[in-house]
């Protein structure tokens, strides 16, 4: 560490604890409390990166989140590396390993800097004007453009860190822990309001914390000492929650705000382990007080981008807060009073201040007088016309401004320096205010955009509201807070405040040089290398809107999102076009305020918590029996149960055969189940299904088809009439939630006169489906009391019974075409009853089958699956299910749509069966069907919706929808695949047991 760059009497950081870290592979030392930036500066390292386009050397420029240049790659572990981190925000920790970005082979010698040489022919937006010839070469050009783009490197392995979310509801949220935020938070909390104060730094106090100057005093103390005492009292306030290292990222409507708390980034790697890295606070505040302060602006002049050129107040913070000298011989260049505070701090710390170059005519505020008293040389009404030094500034050239300040006059003065502080005035941080939808107004006197109208319950106070002088900040913050919260507090009423006041303000957005503009490099956006010349070029070419200029020149599109550049760009546009800044308006500030990790936004919802996993009561049995699972919505359904080395095909063939030969058992618990009660239950079903329900006998079941209002099939299932006014409806697995919500919608909105209640019982029941010729024997063994004779218990009926002391409901319904029973029992007993069925079925080789075999079995019978054989464009008529549409009913959901000119067409796509000429050839689901083979392009008549090899028929079968399919039975068609064409015959959609003998067997 270069000792001479540290001053030792600094009180803010812990100079007794040394921390070692690496930068570009070199081991360096800093202190606890340093940022990476302050530690680098203390090591006399200014050059930390290269710019985006020209690869010009870039140094640390600020001390905060608006830093455009000092962005580094942190860590080199493939899973934990972080690109584009700001050196000014990284708290130093033991083992920190950072490196510069966007340079090769090194930041000191960067090949990419050749672009700087080409800069004359690559002005803003040059790429729109070239790389077009020859057309086929664009791919090659693009390869190089892309290669040179980007700053840091993405991790290449999954993140090992954990992120978290937390909701927070409060009366008052105060954003910003500077002097105004502290006053507001204290006032709110002391008056019983549940208050939260957040700040992105690891301390409270803002810039006042290190403002120790005779010109700024409160009640006879230095302003910083007064503030320190205020901060000390905060901990004892009951209603106040303070969150430091917490950045307000986004301010959404209805006072919904997102803040990111950094929990471990400042800890050494051993201490980070197993801790949550970042927590995203989702805050709902009744009232919001924004106290985010203001940002210093750079000045725009020739070669204003060299390492060693730093914002003036940042230099002050480095010396006063971190005890780091940014240079030994510092010049300051300003258009306002702030630079004088810096000059005085530097002198007090023994740093040489060459001079202050001030574009204003002589002014005599308190602070300027103090500077003069200390003997600081001031160049009034002067400007810096150039700077020198490639990798670090070594001198500046100063000239007098002409009378009207449009040019420079007189002799050029060369001043040697190793650092130049610049201050172009202050920009209120109105980002959050505008994010929330607030409208800005422009204050000409101060050249600032300030909060004006807002829809939300919020205020801005302090310098983000345009108060820049200490006394105004305190008085107005307090006054506004009182008014906003309807309080009559007088804590801060009678303070005696001494504050230097800025008398003169002057802005020249683009400072003149002795060279023509074309030969200068006045940078606006330091990261993206856009200059004032680029902005002027855009304007010349007709890009007048501020958004056009931004997009054309990329000004403000760097990782600082224009925090430093936007105001200057606007100023230059205003100066060039003669339009007032207030009329130009600003570009929109979008969330987040500073970049937010994807990890924090997602929180714990990764890996197993990515999405909910729903399980049936028998799930563990399926797992124990080696089932493969299929995702159906959020459900895990047993897909098939391979034995030994069986592949899916073999397992499904075996399961499907067993179900027809003897007995199969299926977990059908995922089907949606809705309990329907009420005196109008039958009428309700009449309206929601296409068929008639009023005459269904109690104890019987019926299949129903539900349409959308547009006439297209939506869902289907079997509904049982449990009592006079009582039904149990089943829906598809995937459709369950939507069907219930749709039915509720109709009941509550369209038919409130109906006395009907719907209650979901999907999870209450486990459903065990047993099918096959031996199913009856098995059910008999499990429920001996039940009379299973066909007379007593025919197909499409149900019986209530008991298994032991537990009630159950057995339905004789079938989705496979086999003789089949569904046992419904309370879910807690599902697994146990399933196991009993299995035990009872053992002698019949009962075979568990999964959803794939189920699909195969129903296809053999030509039963549709809503969502597979339908796609939202199929009517019941298209499905050849005309029989299910009641002709007698006046109305049901979707009925009218069935009679539109298109839906009554006879050549619509209709559901048919398909058989392949070669019975072994299984069609691919989704493949298209054509009538001619030798034509290109050829009309596609339809597609295959379901296709299987049927082990029971020993041939390939398929369901398909085909234009005019009904009429085409027996016709030959073709399924063209990539490398062959398959011949098929259109058939009836029922392949097996048309007479339903098996159902009643």
């Amino acid at each position, binding site marked *: 560490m270069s000792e001479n760059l540290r001053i030792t009497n600094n009180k803010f950081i812990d100079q007794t604890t040394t921390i070692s870290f690496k930068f570009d592979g070199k081991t360096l030392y800093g202190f606890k409390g340093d940022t990476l930036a302050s530690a680098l500066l203390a090591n006399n390292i200014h050059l930390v990166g290269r710019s985006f386009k020209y690869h010009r050397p870039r140094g640390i420029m600020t001390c905060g989140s608006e830093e455009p240049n000092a962005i580094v790659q942190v860590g080199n572990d493939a899973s934990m590396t972080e690109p584009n981190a700001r050196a000014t925000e990284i708290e130093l920790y033991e083992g920190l390993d950072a490196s510069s970005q966007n340079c090769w082979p090194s930041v000191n010698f960067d090949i990419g800097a050749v672009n700087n040489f080409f800069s004359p022919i690559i002005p803003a937006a040059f790429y729109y004007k070239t790389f077009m010839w020859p057309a086929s070469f664009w791919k090659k050009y693009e390869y190089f453009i892309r290669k040179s783009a980007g700053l840091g490197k993405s991790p*290449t392995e999954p993140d090992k860190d954990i992120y978290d979310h937390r909701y927070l509801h409060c009366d008052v949220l105060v954003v910003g822990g500077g002097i105004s935020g502290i006053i507001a938070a204290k006032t709110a909390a002391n008056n019983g309001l549940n208050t939260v104060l957040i700040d992105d730094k690891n301390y409270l106090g803002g810039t006042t914390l290190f403002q120790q100057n005779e010109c700024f005093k409160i009640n006879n103390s230095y302003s910083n000492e007064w503030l320190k005492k205020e901060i000390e009292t905060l901990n004892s306030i009951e209603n106040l929650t303070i969150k430091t290292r917490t950045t307000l990222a986004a301010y959404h*409507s209805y006072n919904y705000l997102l803040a990111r708390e950094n929990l471990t980034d400042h800890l050494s790697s051993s201490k980070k382990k197993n801790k949550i890295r970042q927590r995203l606070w989702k805050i709902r505040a009744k009232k919001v007080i924004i106290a985010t302060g203001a940002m210093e602006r750079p000045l725009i002049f020739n070669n204003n981008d060299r390492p060693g050129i730093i914002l003036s107040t940042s230099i002050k913070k480095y010396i006063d807060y971190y005890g780091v000298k940014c240079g030994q011989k510092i010049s300051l260049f300003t258009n306002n009073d702030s630079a004088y505070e810096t000059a005085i701090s530097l002198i007090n710390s023994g740093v040489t201040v060459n001079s202050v170059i001030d574009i204003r005519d002589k002014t005599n505020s308190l602070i300027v007088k103090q500077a003069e008293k200390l003997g600081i040389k001031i160049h009034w009404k002067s400007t810096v016309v150039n700077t020198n030094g490639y990798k670090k500034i070594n001198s500046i050239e100063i000239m007098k401004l002409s009378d009207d300040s449009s040019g420079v006059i007189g002799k050029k003065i060369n001043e040697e320096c190793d650092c130049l502080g610049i201050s172009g005035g202050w920009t209120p941080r109105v980002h959050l205010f505008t994010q929330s939808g607030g409208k800005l107004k422009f204050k000409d006197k101060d050249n600032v955009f300030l909060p004006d109208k807002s829809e939300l319950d919020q205020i801005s106070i302090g310098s983000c509201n345009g108060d820049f002088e200490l006394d105004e900040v305190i008085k107005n913050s307090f006054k506004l807070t009182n008014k906003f919260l309807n309080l009559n507090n007088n804590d801060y009423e009678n303070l005696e405040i001494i504050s230097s006041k800025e008398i003169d303000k002057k802005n020249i957005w683009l400072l003149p040089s002795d060279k023509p503009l074309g030969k200068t490099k006045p940078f606006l956006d330091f990261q993206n290398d856009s200059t004032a010349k680029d902005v002027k*070029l855009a304007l*010349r070419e007709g890009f007048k809107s501020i958004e056009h200029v931004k997009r054309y020149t990329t000004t403000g599109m760097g990782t600082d999102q224009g925090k430093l550049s936007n105001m200057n760009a606007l100023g230059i546009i205003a100066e060039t076009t003669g339009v007032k800044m207030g009329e130009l308006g600003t570009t929109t500030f*979008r969330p987040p305020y500073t970049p937010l990790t994807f*990890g924090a936004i997602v929180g714990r919802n990764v890996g197993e918590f990515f999405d909910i*996993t729903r399980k049936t009561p028998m799930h563990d049995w399926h797992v124990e029996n080696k089932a493969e699972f299929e995702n159906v919505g959020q459900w895990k359904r047993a897909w098939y149960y391979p034995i030994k080395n069986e592949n899916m095909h073999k397992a499904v063939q075996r399961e499907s055969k067993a179900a027809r030969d003897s007995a199969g058992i299926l977990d059908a618990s995922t089907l949606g189940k809705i309990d329907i009660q009420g005196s109008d239950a039958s009428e309700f079903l009449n309206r929601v299904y296409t068929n008639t329900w009023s005459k269904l006998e109690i104890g019987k079941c019926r299949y129903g088809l539900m349409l959308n209002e547009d006439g297209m099939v939506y869902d289907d299932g079997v509904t049982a009439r449990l009592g006079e006014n009582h039904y149990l409806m089943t829906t598809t697995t995937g459709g369950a939630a939507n069907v219930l919500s749709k039915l509720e919608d109709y009941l509550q909105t369209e038919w409130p006169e109906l006395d009907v209640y719907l209650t979901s019982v999907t999870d209450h029941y486990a459903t065990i489906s047993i099918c096959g010729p031996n199913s009856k024997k098995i059910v008999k063994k499990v429920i001996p009391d039940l009379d299973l004779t066909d007379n007593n218990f025919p197909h499409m009926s149900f019986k209530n019974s008991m298994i032991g002391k537990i009630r159950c409901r057995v339905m004789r319904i079938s989705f496979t075409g086999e003789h089949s029973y569904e046992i419904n029992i309370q879910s807690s007993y599902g697994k146990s009853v399933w196991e009993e069925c299995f035990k009872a079925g053992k002698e019949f080789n009962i075979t568990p089958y999964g959803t794939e075999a189920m699909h195969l079995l129903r296809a053999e019978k030509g039963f549709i699956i809503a969502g597979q054989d339908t796609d939202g464009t199929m009517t019941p008529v298209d499905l050849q299910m005309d029989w299910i549409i009641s002709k007698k009913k006046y109305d049901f959901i979707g009925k009218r749509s069935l009679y539109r000119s298109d839906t009554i067409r006879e050549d619509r796509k209709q559901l048919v069966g398909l058989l392949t000429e070669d019975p072994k050839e299984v069609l691919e689901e989704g493949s298209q069907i054509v009538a001619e083979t030798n034509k290109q392009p050829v009309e596609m008549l339809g597609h295959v*919706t379901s296709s299987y090899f049927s082990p029971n028929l020993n041939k390939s079968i398929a369901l398909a929808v085909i234009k005019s399919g009904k009429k085409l039975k027996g016709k030959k068609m073709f399924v063209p695949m990539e490398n062959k064409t398959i011949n098929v015959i259109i058939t009836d959609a029922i392949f097996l047991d048309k007479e339903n003998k098996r159902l009643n067997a």
Partner: protein
Amino acid sequence: MKNKYSIFALIKNAFTYHENWQRAWRDPLPKKEYDVVIVGGGGHGLATAYYLAKKHGMKNIAVVEKGWIGGGNTGRNTTIIRSNYLWDASAGLYDHALKIWEGLSQELNYNVMFSQRGVMNLAHNLQDVRDLKRRTHANRLNGIDSVWLNTEEVKKFCPIINTSPNIRYPVLGGTLQKRAGTARHDAVAWGYARGADAMGVDIIQNCEVKNIKRNGDSIEGIETTKGFIKAKKIGVVAAGHSSVIANMVDLKLPLESKPLQALVSEPVKPIIDTVVMSNAVHAYISQSDKGELVIGAGTDAYVSYTQRGSHDVVEGTLKAILELYPIFSRMKMLRQWGGIVDICPDASPIISKTHIKGLYFNCGWGTGGFKATPGSGDLFAHTIANDEPHKLNADFNINRFVSGDLVDEHGAAAVAH
């Protein structure tokens, strides 16, 4: 005559410090009367004007834009271009556009950076597989270069995708259209504006339409913030604001305008060189030429003209991104924004005459209008010039909502783009 853009022009202009570049387009005051007024200066509107002038010999054309050109959905989308649509009508429409994209930079003498880096659509469940295969077969027969990839091939084409079978919704395969890709969205608007302007089209910015004046069943002109402009024909291409314009003539459209959000990360060195979309887990991603990851979220379910959606949607999208690309957890969202998309019930657009003579609508592009820009402009220009649709947009008429003959891309495009 406009200067031609080329590397030589750049070198030549370097000698004069680029002080002599011409305006890309003029900034005219509106004339009293135009043959055609296009309402909406986005990509589609500017392209319409361009093709009206270029292909239909019309000279007296204006584009009126209430803000700045390209400032709506043109400048807010995730720039994906593809044509692998399910239905013949859609495939015809979008592939017509894709073919124009392929020569657009040269045609406009403006580099729109059309980058055919491929678009992959992933399948995460068995129904996805069926749907995507169905689409691929249909595409192949329609002459569109779409192929099915199994999981290993997906991984090979884009190695950073998490194709582990142990994730919540494993990747079961996907489709790839190699001719698909992305383009530089702003450049499309600017390029068409420059091209249209060169042929005499007046591009009038900051000119908001306040009312449409009609005389019985035909239109007379538009009342704007810059005064009344007489027009023989009016083509409305106002995207999210289509209903606002339609309501001026008591025309109801089958549209809902909803917030659609997108976001970009900070720029990083190339890490993903294709476009990957996933409907089932609602995420799509590409990387811009600047290095930013460009990520699209879904729409909110409610109507809003605020250009802001709810945070839950962004969170849900990034959740899906991290499921598929866990390596991006430490990447940072740089900027997030919203647009207003007008969505038809069948997720297909309307390019149509109306029952009012001289009034035409091009709307309902929902979440995926950018990719169609050149085709949409060409076909809409045809429809306006001939007062009847081109065969490629005949199916996209308003009347389909009456007859029921929808072009239902919903199933295939829960998340379109």
